[in-house]
């Protein structure tokens, strides 16, 4: 197992280096010294308290969506609708926050439960279509993304909008529906604890429950799943519910921890969380802890790059370009994993892979 982990880490590192080279070229095109740029990114994200806080703020929703992706991908279900489920959760959370004021101790949990349910049901639509009507889940989840994106837009600018505000958004949530900041001087909020809790929950589900075992069997081989007495259709639907639920939570932490309102959804970074979550999950080898670490990495990249933008003359989308490259790299690594593994085995551990297959190479 150690060997496998090592080669996974090395392949991740190789992709990061490739992306860094590509990013350096980009910086050079923009007339910025790449080494200086990378230094500024790292300083911006980790050199200041504020930077660390900003990195974590980004890492929280990415972790939650990453967990959502991890659950689905481990079951062999390509839920790429994290973005749509994120907005579904944000809408569900806002609905509770704005229209059902009550004491904090009930309001906050209720808000998150609502977000989990709306996110889950939203993904469940794709799950139902996949299980009972054989609709490809990549297409359905991807297309469902747009509906909640524009629904958010509609609600924030239309029926739920607060005309008294300067930006187009709903009214601010009452205090009972806001996640507290961890410290007065930084923006990072209690959603961090929620993200860590969810990492723990998914870890337990995947490794210590019968449900998790069945989920992995489903992901390994559909025929084997049927053989293993798994009710495949039901399982597919529940996995989508669960997966969408975590993405929904990501939407809730954003509205209740960062903006305190539901607002126009088409902001560049936010609109990318769904896909960055896929990158983080794949970079984290579809494990909860790995996803967390990768999410922090992406958080650092985003926060550091926004700092970079403030000190040098750089177009805002440059960062998105780098993140996009990283995600493509991670997807590619995931697809070619067996080949990469074989190659690294050869390079790292001598000429031939030494597996049990070798001992019984007979017919």
């Amino acid at each position, binding site marked *: 197992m150690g060997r496998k982990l090592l080669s996974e880490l090395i392949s991740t590192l190789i992709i990061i280096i490739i992306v860094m080279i590509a990013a350096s070229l980009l910086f050079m095109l923009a007339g910025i010294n790449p080494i200086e740029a990378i230094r500024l990114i790292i300083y911006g994200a980790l050199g200041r308290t504020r930077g660390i806080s900003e990195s974590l703020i980004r890492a929280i929703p990415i972790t939650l969506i990453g967990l959502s992706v991890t659950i689905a991908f481990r079951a062999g279900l390509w839920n790429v609708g994290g973005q749509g489920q994120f907005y579904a959760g944000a809408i569900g959370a806002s609905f509770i926050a704005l229209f059902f004021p009550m004491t904090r101790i009930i309001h906050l949990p209720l808000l998150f439960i609502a977000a989990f349910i709306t996110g889950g049901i939203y993904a469940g639509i794709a799950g139902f279509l996949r299980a009972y009507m054989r609709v490809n889940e990549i297409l359905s989840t991807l297309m469902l993304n747009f509906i909640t994106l524009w629904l958010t837009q509609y609600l924030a600018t239309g029926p739920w909008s607060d005309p008294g505000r300067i930006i187009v958004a709903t009214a601010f949530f009452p205090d009972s529906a806001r996640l507290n900041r961890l410290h007065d001087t930084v923006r990072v909020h209690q959603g961090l604890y929620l993200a860590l809790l969810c990492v723990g929950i998914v870890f337990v589900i995947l490794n210590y429950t019968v449900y998790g075992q069945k989920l992995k*069997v489903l992901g390994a081989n559909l025929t084997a799943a049927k053989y293993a007495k798994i009710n495949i259709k039901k399982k597919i639907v529940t996995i989508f519910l669960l997966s969408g639920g975590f993405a929904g939570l990501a939407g809730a932490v954003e509205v209740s921890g960062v903006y305190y309102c539901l607002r126009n959804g088409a902001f560049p970074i936010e609109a990318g969380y769904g896909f960055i979550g896929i990158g983080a999950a794949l970079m984290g080898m579809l494990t909860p802890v790995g996803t967390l670490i990768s999410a922090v990495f992406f958080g650092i990249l985003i926060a550091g790059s926004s700092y970079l933008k403030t000190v040098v003359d750089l177009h805002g989308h440059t960062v998105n370009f780098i993140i996009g490259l990283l995600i493509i790299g991670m997807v590619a690594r995931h697809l070619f994993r067996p080949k990469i593994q074989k190659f690294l085995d050869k390079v790292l551990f001598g000429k031939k892979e030494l597996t049990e297959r070798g001992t019984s*190479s007979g017919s």
Partner: protein
Amino acid sequence: MSTSALAIEMRQIRKVYGRDVVANDGIDFDVRFGEVHCLLGENGAGKSTLMKILFGLVQADEGEIFINGNPVKFLSPSDAINGGIGMVHQQFKLVPSLTVLENIALGLNEKKLGKIESEFGRVCLEYDVDIDKNKKVKDLPAHEQQLVEILKLLCLGQKILIFDEPTSILVGEQIQQLLKRLKEWAKMGHAVVFISHKMNEVLEVGDRISVLRNGKKVACVEGDGIERDKLIELMVGEDFKEYKRGEEKDLSSAEKILQVDNLSVKNQENKFVLEDVSFSVREGEIFGIAGIQGNGQDALVEVITGTNPESIRITDGKIELEGINITGFTSSKIESKKIDLGYIPPKAKDIGVATTLSVKENLLLRGWSQYGNVFVNWRKLYKRADELIEKYNISVPSKEANVSTLSGGNRIKIILARELSRQTKLLVIFDPCTGLDVKSIEFFKKNLLELAKNNNTAILLVSNDLDLLFDVCDSLGVIFRGKVLPYQSSDGSFKMDEITNMMTGGE
């Protein structure tokens, strides 16, 4: 024959995988024109590695190869093919959607179809083979596909023919026919290598027999006059017992565990795959169903175990398990009724395990409730896994290792260990022995007989391996074109020719 020229001579072949897995340890092997030379050995003895080296698929670490007396070095199969070697692999290298002739054409350098056609006709005539050249390969039964594969080599003019376990896809009559042909081709001047672990076939066809064990050549004997027991001893390296069923059991009063009544099943095209099938399996009974692949046995075990694809549906009849009607139930629905059945599926090494998961996770498969309802009791499973790995002699690097790194034989052992140890009332088994070595097969038979005797397990054994069925079954049925006919032997014991006749549709 001993005067014939040497076609192949392999000297001191050594091949080490990784650091210390010695697949071939200084093997000498030679084949003359005009003989059938059998390469006998258990799975993992090194037969395949040796032949892969000869065919250029694997490079030897040490050793020399001579073809027709000339030293050669094959770096790829195409080198070997140019060197006059033809190999019939276990998995055919044919294009199913093309016709026989088109497949032949693919293997040749000749571009003109007319020339290919006349060459094909000549070869068929010379080798006395009758096959419809315009049929698509996918419409041919397995044994004819194999023939196409062989014709490809003959049309290329290969003088050296290697057959890698060619009989594993054949039954009864077909095996005899292939063996007869091999002998004829040897007489026509070909050098034939026949790889197998089946004693009877090797004894029948081999002019000489080389036995490999643990990567070493332990003997090369003349085919005439060698005793079967002697050969087994050479191959396995120790005394071992062949298990067979004991005395006749009186099962007439035993409870019926599985009862199938007038079962009819149709496929997507609305054609019957099973028609009016009725049989029952009693407590402690081993009921065998013999049949050539493709006569509906897949559908039969799938509908009983609830693992059939949606395209296959039951149109009539009833299946009862332990008195409960389970007709049309999925495997998960059967489980929800709190009844359990052991099942070793067809193509077990692919679908009986989830290959990307670990050994311990695969031992959990199907036995879910044994190890907890919500949380998995890993400690209990670990203990059980240790017991099973030892008892079933499964060689695994660790319980955490991915099943994909295991050989087919060991995967099957995992499935056997799991299903046999669950002690269910009914055990459904489909062709369990493909890919198992001799010792494991005997071990498997012993376990089956014990289960039936000591635990009163009802066992439904579907197979085309008549030797296996004869050894363990209390009663037999034959499946042919979707119908299951009970076999009533003429004098109480099973008769190979009678059964083969029924399997191929004769009366």
